[in-house]
Structures are given as structure tokens and as C-alpha cells.
């Protein structure tokens, strides 16, 4: 028979001050961990939500970034005729030549400006991005100096909102619409007309990359082989999903995440020692009670279990405190840089079930490890000696 859990919970309530202080200490540790998980989940969801598994991106051989890539006009024509490419209703192959450039926009937090990606598209580009939906305004008119902005841009850069105008290239561009594209990184992009944009940056003809929709997921592999083996092209095709997975790796968010996890783990060691201290004090204070419990017939094992559970309960309380401390960060929008694209990608901290349960498990572990030795010493006490103590 086990010692009732109520006995432990009442003891925790009885020692309010100590319980709260220890829980708060564990709570801060857990808060650091939850924040790091939330950041990782936010960043991962951006890149995991980017790219379509039926699509591939064609870049110059030797580069893995759209920015450094060029694809000549004649190569665009060659790629259009490759087999396995999906076609739209009018029979046009779904191949989108795209330009990519980086511009500097001042933001609230950073008056010197942060870098933002601008993508140049032809109308066909939108057909490869059916998931992009207008939030307000309209799509840009290809003949005009107009742009549409992703919601991540609109929320972070005051000037880049519908009705406003932004300066880059050879002058001013009107913002005519705001779009959202799932949780993908295109929410951190500005879209303009391909030819207008290339003209502004003195690049005539051709594009940086080609985005290609294939007939099926299986066709992607065949297509990448075909591009690789075509000596005329000097290009390589990468599945779009793989392209975005690589971007995650080079994102600077990884640095901050790693610092966060390292700090959380080291703090947890400290918090574990503190939990042990609290539990040793509890054991010492309740020496005669332990003797009484033993005299009543509770086994050493049930005493051990009881004190370990008390420690875990204490730590879980800390975990809840930690979750509450971290909760206000939920959905907070922040930006991370990327050394691959030299621009900023917006993400949202995701304090979701995974982050919180991660924090609680972490807390329980601190309690388990910190509480084991004190509980062990409690269970080893001789009945008579224990009753005499304290």
C-alpha cells in the first residue's frame, strides 16, 4: 500500500514559502526551455510550411541560393519543353521564371533598416502558389510599379502596408495588396513584376531561378535528373522542399536556439540541486513522521515513492509557473536573419502543446533527479531513530 498523495500535497501547502521559492526557481528554468522550444517550432514551421513536394527549383550549378543564381532566357525555353512538367488549363507548362533581390527597409526596432527579399514574378508565378490568398487590396498589375507584400512584412514594416509606397531600385513602388501564404517563408517576401524588377536592377532577360510544377511527386526525381544531364543548361534542379530545409540550417535563429537550450540545461542542473536541498530539509523536518509511517506499516519502498512523488509534484508546480511565465510570448512575431538569402524571415513563437509538455517533462525530470537521493535517505531511516529525531 502506498502513502496517499494527499499527504505530500498537504505538506507542500504547509511549507508555502519554501515550496513557492523552489517552484519559482524551477519555473524560470522551464520558462527558458519553453521559450527555446517555441522559437524552434516557430522557425521550423516557417520552413516546413514552405515549398510544394510536386515542385522543383532550377538554379545555376554550384550555387544553393536563388540570390547568386542566374538562368538564361534560352535555358528557360529549354526547361519548358522537358517532359513531366504539369500544364495549366490553357496548356501552358507551369514553369515560373523568378527574380530574387534583397532590399533594405527601415523597421520600428531597427531604424537603420533590415533586409527583405523581393521576388519578381510573372502572372504564371501565382499559379504555382495557389495557396497564396489576398488579405486585403488586389494583386499587382504587371505593367505598373506595384507590389504586394506578405503579412509578415506588413505587420513589421509600417511603410509597407496597402496604400503606402516603398523605395527601392530606381524609385517608388505602390503597395496594392497584402497576401498570406500558409505559414511559409513567402509571408516575409515582397512580390513585384519580374520584368519591372529586373529592369530596376539592370538585368535584362533571363531570371535568377525557375520554379517548376511537375505532374506528380515521382516526376520530381526524373526532372532533376533530366536537368542535371542536359549539358546545355549548366543548371541544377532541387526539390523545393529540400531547398527550404537547407535554408533552415543556415538561419541565424539556430544560434539563439542553441544558446537557449544550453542555458536551460545548465540551469536545470542548478535547479536540480536546489530541489534536492528543499527535499532534504523536508525529510529532516519530518523525521518523526517518517518513523510513524513506518511504524504504521508503510514499507521502505512506499516511503521512497512518496518522497519522489512529492519532489516531482513540487517540480511540476514549477513547470506550470514556467509555462505561465512563457505564455505571453505565444504568437509574438520576431524576425531572424539568414546568411543564405541575406534577408529577414518573420516567425512566431509557438507556445503550443509540444512546447508546454516539453517544459513539464523537463520539470518532472528535475524533480525526479533532485528528489531521488533525499527520498532514498528517508526510506533508509530506522523506525526508532527516526521517531527520536527532530
Amino acid at each position, binding site marked *: 500500500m502506498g502513502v496517499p498523495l494527499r499527504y505530500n500535497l498537504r505538506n507542500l501547502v504547509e511549507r508555502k*514559502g*519554501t515550496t513557492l*521559492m*523552489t517552484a*519559482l*526557481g524551477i519555473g*524560470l*528554468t522551464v*520558462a*527558458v526551455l519553453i521559450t527555446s522550444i517555441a522559437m524552434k517550432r516557430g522557425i521550423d514551421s516557417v520552413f516546413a510550411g514552405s515549398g510544394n513536394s510536386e515542385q522543383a527549383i532550377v538554379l*545555376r550549378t*554550384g*550555387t*544553393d*541560393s536563388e540570390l*547568386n543564381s*542566374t538562368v538564361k532566357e534560352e535555358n528557360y525555353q529549354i526547361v519548358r519543353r522537358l517532359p513531366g512538367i504539369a500544364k495549366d488549363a490553357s496548356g501552358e507548362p507551369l514553369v515560373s521564371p523568378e527574380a530574387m*533581390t*534583397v*532590399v*533594405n527597409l527601415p523597421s520600428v*526596432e*531597427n531604424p*537603420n533598416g*533590415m*533586409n527583405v527579399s523581393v521576388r519578381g514574378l510573372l502572372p504564371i508565378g501565382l499559379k504555382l502558389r495557389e495557396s497564396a490568398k489576398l488579405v486585403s487590396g488586389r494583386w499587382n498589375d504587371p505593367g505598373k510599379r506595384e507590389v504586394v507584400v506578405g503579412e509578415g512584412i506588413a505587420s513589421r514594416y509600417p511603410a509597407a502596408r496597402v496604400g503606402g509606397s516603398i523605395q*527601392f531600385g*530606381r524609385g517608388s513602388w505602390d503597395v496594392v495588396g497584402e497576401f498570406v501564404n500558409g505559414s511559409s517563408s513567402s509571408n516575409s517576401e515582397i512580390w513585384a513584376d519580374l520584368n519591372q524588377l529586373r529592369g530596376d536592377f*539592370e538585368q535584362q532577360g533571363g531570371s535568377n531561378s525557375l520554379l517548376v510544377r511537375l505532374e506528380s511527386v515521382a516526376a520530381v526525381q526524373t526532372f532533376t535528373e533530366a536537368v542535371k544531364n542536359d549539358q546545355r543548361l549548366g543548371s541544377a534542379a532541387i526539390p523545393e522542399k529540400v531547398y527550404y530545409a537547407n535554408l533552415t540550417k543556415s538561419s*541565424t*535563429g539556430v*544560434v*539563439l536556439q542553441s*544558446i*537557449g537550450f*544550453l*542555458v536551460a540545461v*545548465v*540551469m536545470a*542542473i*542548478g*535547479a*536540480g*540541486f*536546489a530541489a*534536492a*536541498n*528543499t527535499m*532534504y*530539509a523536508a525529510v*529532516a*523536518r519530518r523525521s518523526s513522521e517518517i518513523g510513524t509511517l513506518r511504524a504504521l506499516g508503510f514499507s521502505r519502498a512506499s516511503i521512497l515513492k512518496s518522497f519522489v512523488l512529492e519532489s516531482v509534484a513540487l517540480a511540476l508546480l514549477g513547470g506550470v509557473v514556467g509555462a505561465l511565465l512563457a505564455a505571453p510570448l505565444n504568437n509574438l512575431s*520576431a*524576425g*531572424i*536573419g539568414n*546568411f543564405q538569402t*541575406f*534577408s529577414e524571415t518573420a516567425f512566431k513563437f509557438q507556445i503550443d502543446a509540444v512546447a508546454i509538455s516539453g517544459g513539464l517533462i523537463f520539470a518532472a525530470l528535475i524533480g525526479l533527479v533532485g528528489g531521488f537521493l533525499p527520498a532514498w535517505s528517508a526510506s533508509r531511516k530506522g523506525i526508532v531513530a527516526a521517531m527520536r529525531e*527532530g
Partner: protein
Amino acid sequence: MFRLAPLILRNIFRHRRRSLLTLASTAVSLSVLGLLIALFQGFFFAPASSPQEALRLISRHKVSLTNVLPASHEARIAAIDGVVSVSPYSWFGGVYKNDKPENFFARFAVDPEELRKVYVDYKAPDEQWKAFTRNRTGAAIARKLADKLNIKIGDRVNISGDIYPVNLELKIEMIYDAPPNNDAVLFHVKYLTELRKAAGEADADTVGTFAILARSADDVPRIGRAVDALFDNSPSPTRTESEREFALSFLAFLGNVKLYLAVICAAVTFTILLVSANTVAMSVRERTREIAILRTLGYSPMEILQTVIGESVLISVVGGAVAIAFTLGLTTLGSSALGPFGDTIKFTPQVVLAVGVTAALIGVLAAIVPAVLASRRNIVESLRYAG
């Protein structure tokens, strides 16, 4: 105070396990604080790597590092009053051997003749400078990097391009000693331009960044403004900053690092404070009767206060000392993990001081409330306290 020292020591040693656990908890948490402080210092308060650093400016395209500048900017910058010399200093990127992290290092296209004037703190024998300048496919490598990659004078180094569609075939002509964070392979910008023209690039005569040496530190801000004003209305406007500001702009790229580190440091410090305060409170509560007896023996409330605070401070400070040793280990580990940016994390006297002072302050702050309460407690009531 010293009269109380034996009592303080006895109290610490009476509860060896508790003192040790508190000490360990403080030491572990303080060491991570030490690491963060070292990182913070490396990011924001790094001392100038050499006296010349303060004299240099870096000019790049106003929009971003991926936008290039025409090579013709060089002559126009050089004509500005106060500019001693200018050299292209273009990031090449590329891949050496494979994309393993240990083979990643900086490669810059430079004009060796001008570079020698701008980076007077790059030290190499005169004949090596001359050999590097003479050979269009020659290259220079920083000594630390050469040792790490086991590269010697006369070695061939091939680097395949990713930003540029060209491959470099270089011969090492010079090994130079450079101030921290300047480890790179340098080669002729002329060679790069030639290759780019051969590859059919339309605008091959471009440069990523220019390094500028100013006559005096006072000239630096004015030159920065003058360069930017010169190209403000051109198709290729510039942003010119001191070498330090340029480095910090990379950091801005990581996000709000300053705030992030500050918040984590605060969380760590507050956690240690809670843990220590909790321990002091537990000890004092257990000794309620004992303290009352000391009072009846004639110890003043002030002396009680001093024993409690003394005990807490002593444990904290010893914890701090252990933490400093841990920090040394963590910074060494962190530094090697960062590879080419390893100089960012350094174990400095300032880090030691910061950890030490924090430890002492935590010792005092953690004890102050329980100590005051204990010293003020009514003697008779305390004697009755059952514990």
C-alpha cells in the same frame, strides 16, 4: 566580524550536504552566467583588435552585401580628403575541398598593393608581400588558418565558386600574422574579374566591399559621410561604416541579441537568488531556538545579522570561485565550437570580476530578509519554537 568567523564556519560545516548542494547550484548557474557575460562582451564590448582598427572604414552597397558596387568607386573614394588608401575587400564565398565546417573560412578578393597600406597590421616578410603582389594567381593566408589547414608557402589551393560562377586556382605566396578575427585567404581581385569576364558575366568589374584607411581616427566619421554623400544619387549608393560598426551590423542580423542575452542573464541571476534565499531561510528557520540562545548569551541582533549574512556570502563567493573555473572551461569549449568566430568568446578579467561581484551580491541579497527577521525575533517566543 572576525570574532564571528568561527561560528560562521561551524554553521557551514554543520550542514555539509546542504552547503555543498547550495554551492554546487550557485556554481553551475553562475558559470552559465559567466559564459553569457563573455559572449555579451565579445559581441558588444570587444576591445579593438589592433590600433589600426579604429582608422578603418568599410564601404558596401546601401541595400545589402549581396548587391555589388562598380570597381570605379575605388578611385573616387581615394580622392576624398583624409583617405590614405583604399582596397577592394570582396567576399568570395566558395567551397574549399568540401562543405565540412572545418574547411569553412573567409576568402576575400583584394588589391595586394593597396591592401598592404590599408591593413598595416597584417605582418609578413617583405619578400612574401612582393611575391604575393607579383603573382596574379597568388594568395595570402593568415598564419592561424595555415596551421589549422596545414597549408605552406608554395601550396596550391583550389576554391570552387558559389556566389561567382568561377573556380579559383591559387598558389600560396604569403603567410601573414593578423589581429584576431582576421583569418582569411586573400587573392587578387584582378584575377577574379578576369575569370568572371571569361565566364561571360556582363558586369564583371564589380566589388563587394571596399576597405578604407583614414588619416586619423577623427577623420573616420566625416569620411564615412563623405563617401555615402558622393554616391547617394548614383545607381549604386553606399553605406560606409567604421570596421567596428560593420561587424556589429552582422550581429543585428541575428535579431535583438542584446535584449535576448540580457533577459536570459536576468532569469539566471534571479534563479540563483531564489535558490540561495530559500536555503538561508531554511537554515535560519531550523536554528530559531539556537539563535534565541545566542541572544540570551549576549549576542546583539547586529551580530546575528552578520553571522547569517556572512554564511550566505561565504557560500556564494566560494560558489562564484568554482563558477569562474567552470566558466573558463565553458568559454574554451564555446570558442572552439564557434570555429572561425571563436575569438568572440573570451575569458577575460572582466568576466571574472562580473561573476565574482554577482556572487557576492547574491550572497548578501539572498540573506538580507531572513537575517533581519531572525535578528528581530522575540527571544522568549523563539525559545518556545518547536521547529
